[in-house]
């Protein structure tokens, strides 16, 4: 086993982008303020200096236009990484993403590949209020033709982009603004990570906590605390939200017989709904208790910290919910 190094989530993302640019001339990064500003969240800082204007393209505010252009460029042989600064602006290019990127391959009878990668920073946690705190993974996960991945760990921050760029179909990558400064240890030679499989982040036998994104570290922390109370929770990071890796969580639930689904997105019609429905369909007779969900409050996120915190599941909420399921 190789050495570990400490790295922030931001540094991990940046290392992934830099590697991609070094590896393949067809790769370029385009988005609002990715160059001269250094990236809205400093993820792409200094890449303009290193790679030049042709590879790191600042674009005007025109999300539909430049995302569409990225799709077009990918149709014509490039490998664009399009950054939509945050998912909060991600509805503006959504028609491009759905009616073009996700559709062209099928609609053309298999002729046209769209190997574009679209990165969006997302989530809550910086008191940015209603229009800037969205978790819209569920909206994109509804769309066939897209591969939708969620970067819940430093390992994936470092390794998912490469795999996404190798995919011949459009990949949407969700990154989490509130995790950027978070440090963690990863293998010094950490490599590419899968975008087709969920991952068991902690093995356990009493209950499956199924989550993604910001939920992963929260669930791991909750599992740690629960273990002190004699509860052995398994933590599953879904990672790929479409197509879902059903086998992974069905297997887990078939072992633990209980599940808690955790996510920050608004609680109705979200990823957890889908996971719950699939457990219902495929592991109903394995269940010792109904599957429960902890989702985001169904409100436009308010600005004050105490209300923001109350809007999404916290470690204590996960802990309590697990206890309630196991010791009703």
């Amino acid at each position, binding site marked *: 086993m190789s050495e570990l190094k400490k790295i922030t989530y931001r540094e991990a993302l940046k290392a992934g982008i830099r590697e991609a640019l070094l590896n393949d001339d*067809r790769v*370029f990064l385009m988005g609002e303020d990715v160059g001269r500003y250094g990236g809205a969240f400093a993820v792409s800082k200094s890449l303009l200096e290193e790679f030049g204007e*042709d590879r790191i393209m600042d*674009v*005007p505010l*025109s999300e*539909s*236009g*430049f*995302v*569409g*252009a*990225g*799709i*077009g*460029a*990918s*149709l*014509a*042989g*490039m*490998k*664009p990484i399009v950054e939509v600064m945050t998912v909060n602006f991600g509805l503006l290019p959504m*028609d*491009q993403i759905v*009616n*073009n990127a996700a559709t*062209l*391959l*099928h*609609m*053309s*009878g*298999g*002729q*046209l*590949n769209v*190997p574009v990668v679209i990165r969006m920073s997302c989530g809550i946690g910086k008191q940015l209020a209603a229009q800037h705190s969205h978790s819209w993974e569920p909206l994109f996960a509804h769309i*066939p*033709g897209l*591969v939708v991945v969620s970067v819940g760990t430093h390992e994936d921050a470092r390794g998912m982009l490469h795999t996404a*760029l*190798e*995919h*011949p*179909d459009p990949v949407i990558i969700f990154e989490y603004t509130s995790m950027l400064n978070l440090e963690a240890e990863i293998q010094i030679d950490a490599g590419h990570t899968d975008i087709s499989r969920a991952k068991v982040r902690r093995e356990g036998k009493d209950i499956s906590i199924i989550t993604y994104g910001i939920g992963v570290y929260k669930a791991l922390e909750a599992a740690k605390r629960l273990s002190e109370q004699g509860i052995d929770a398994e933590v599953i990071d879904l990672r790929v939200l479409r*197509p879902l890796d059903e086998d992974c969580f069905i297997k887990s639930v078939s072992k633990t017989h209980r599940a808690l689904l955790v996510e920050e997105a608004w609680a109705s019609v979200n990823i957890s709904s889908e996971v719950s429905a699939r457990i219902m369909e495929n592991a109903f007779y394995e269940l010792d208790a109904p599957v429960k969900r902890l989702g985001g409050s169904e409100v436009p996120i308010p600005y004050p910290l105490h209300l923001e915190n109350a809007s999404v599941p916290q470690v204590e909420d996960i802990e309590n919910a697990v206890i309630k399921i196991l010791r009703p």
Partner: protein
Amino acid sequence: MKNKNNLDPEKAEKLLFQMLLMRKFEEKSAELYTKEKIRGFLHLYIGEEAVATGIIQALKPEDYILATYREHAHALARGVDAGVIMAEMYGKQEGCSRGRGGSMHLFDKEKNFFGGNAIVSGHLPLATGMALASKKLKRDNITVCFFGEGAAAEGEFHEALNLASLWKVPVLFVCENNLYAMGTALRYTHAVQEIEKKGPAYGIESKAVDGMDLLKLMEAANKAVEQVRSSGEPYLLVCNTYRFRAHSMFDAELYRDKTEVEKWKKRDPIPKFRKYLLKENLISEAKVQELEKRLNTEIQKAVDLAEAGTWEAKEELTRFVYSENPVS
């Protein structure tokens, strides 16, 4: 031996045949629609044939073409086989999009024909992006994007033109101004009705041309294409034309006077061009008759191919949602 309009008999014949084929093909399609051989939406280009013909004759095979849902003529001009188009409109797997697209979604990657787009203005950003790829890959092809005057009211027009101009990419925007967007007349769509006046707001050279006159169109198209190719910069060509038929097969044409239609029919580009060729001795009456005969054979062949075509198996429904060989 070319005449002053740069026409020799061979090219003259080819162009006349092309326009006749477009006309006849669509008349046949309308008939087949009433027979329920063709279903869904069917948008006829009848009356506007000079535009696709005039523009596409100016292109090289490696140039990219994007069009709207009213694109049979463009596909024909591009050299997509009439039978393959007809099969597509039947929904047969011998069609150019494997039958999955139908009339609105003709694609032929080999011919660099990129659809067939039915979200109005949704393909403009794609065109800018394809041209961007050409620039980055140092290809010397250009991208041509056809769209209606109605599309020019959409935000994506604004974004795509601004990006193309900022990036200096070789794309020719061809606005097919047929005075109506479904039932909405130009004066209800644009506060400023001369679409060519919109180019300067993006620093894009723009010109309007009589879209009912193939000779004028060829001249304007040759110039525009040459300029895009040599400068590597965008250009907006507005072709003022008219559709003789309803918007689609679901249209009672309540919004315009029959007399207006009749007036425009007097400017039908096909008889006009034929008359010119005869006058200039670029074609003979006998040749014209021969063309008409060839035409009938060609149409019959197309219909036969479509009729003989086969249905894709139901089991293939979910193919091409994602690529089958996920290697990029």
